[in-house]
């Protein structure tokens, strides 16, 4: 099947496609693909949703798209500042519908590791930590994560450390979209630029692929929105898988 997905566009557009009408969606620190997804959804989809971000922005209309997803530029145009205490508390009391949380590893049950590769006391790599994931993943209604690298070391059968567990619903990579069904991640869509068995070969956990389909092509409006957010291709260049 012909398709003009790039790893970058596949991740950002499929993250954006998780947002549903009327929802309150949130993007956090070190989450540039999620930030771009929320801004893309605002430009490409006709339905209303509320976009909050870690910089304190409420429905921001940023003049420039910052490199960092925690840049105060993401407050520009906000009629209010809804800062760290507010959005975490909103999540804790069940008020965030969709939360994007990054990860280093994700397992087949949709738990994530953002803490350490190797043993905690003798780590191979010390990671930055969850940044609130342990509180947000069990309390948000739905959590979406992504990995720019789809491999058996990122999508694993067993995590080196469980940073967060709970309501993870979706995992997006350059070649796949997994959705949780009956407590396990199942393949929903794959990138038609790769074969289905390549997804299985590059995934460390076992998954159900029944009903999986090639992802619908990027729409003209999604393409236009993505181009408007990254006119010089800088974000795309930073995300070549």
């Amino acid at each position, binding site marked *: 099947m012909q398709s003009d997905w790039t790893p970058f566009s596949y991740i950002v557009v499929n993250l954006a496609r998780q947002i549903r009408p009327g929802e309150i969606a949130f993007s956090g620190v070190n989450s540039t693909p999620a930030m771009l997804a929320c801004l893309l959804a605002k430009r490409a989809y006709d339905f209303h949703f509320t976009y909050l971000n870690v910089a304190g922005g409420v429905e921001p209309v940023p003049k420039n798209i*910052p490199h960092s997803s925690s*840049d105060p530029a993401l*407050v520009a145009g906000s009629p209010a500042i809804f800062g760290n205490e507010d959005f975490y508390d909103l999540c804790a*009391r069940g008020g965030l519908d969709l939360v994007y949380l990054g990860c280093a590893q994700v397992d087949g049950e949709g738990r994530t590791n953002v803490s350490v590769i190797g043993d905690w006391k003798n780590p191979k790599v010390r990671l930055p930590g969850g940044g609130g994931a*342990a509180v947000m993943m*069990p309390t948000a209604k739905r959590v979406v994560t992504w990995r720019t690298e789809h491999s058996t070391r990122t999508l694993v059968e067993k995590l080196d*450390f469980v*940073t967060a567990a709970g309501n993870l619903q979706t995992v997006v990579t350059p070649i796949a979209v997994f959705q949780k069904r009956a407590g396990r991640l199942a393949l929903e869509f794959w990138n038609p630029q790769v074969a289905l068995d390549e997804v299985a070969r590059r995934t460390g956990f076992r998954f159900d692929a029944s009903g999986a389909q090639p992802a619908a092509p990027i729409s003209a409006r999604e393409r236009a929105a993505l181009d408007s957010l990254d006119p010089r291709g800088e974000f795309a260049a930073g995300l070549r898988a």
Partner: protein
Amino acid sequence: MTLVAGLRAAAYGVPFQPVAGVHGSDLAALNGWQKIKDPYGSGKDVYVIPAISPDVAVIHANEVDEHGNARVLGSPFWDHPLTRAAKRVLVTAERLVPSAALAAQPELTLVPGFMVEAAAVVPRGAWPGSMHPLYEVDYPAVEAYLRDEDGALEAHLAAAPEQSKK
């Protein structure tokens, strides 16, 4: 968020603070966090985080007066619980202003001067970070000091705004 629960416990003057979530995370066992039953009978188990009281909190403000009253514009991030939990509070600020300027809009003052031990006026003191609405993140400077090469840190320190002022 668990860190903030600890800060809130200190700010509230209680030994621990309940926090939502954490269930299923290895962080609980690693940090020795305890889980308690709701004593009011909801049947819910809640993790409780011990109080964290920093010895010193340092925050950067937009404006400060001679009494240490400090105004922060834009998102306050964690400045509020941090300054309430800490034993001592130090302020750096972009500029010194007359007290009357702060009194004209007291709701913009994040920390009252009676809580502040000392303040320093440090223009562009958040560099290479941003200070709303005065300046944005200096991404080239951030990328330069992240380079894994000899002299990167020294070059970064030499480029700091307080150095060029001399």
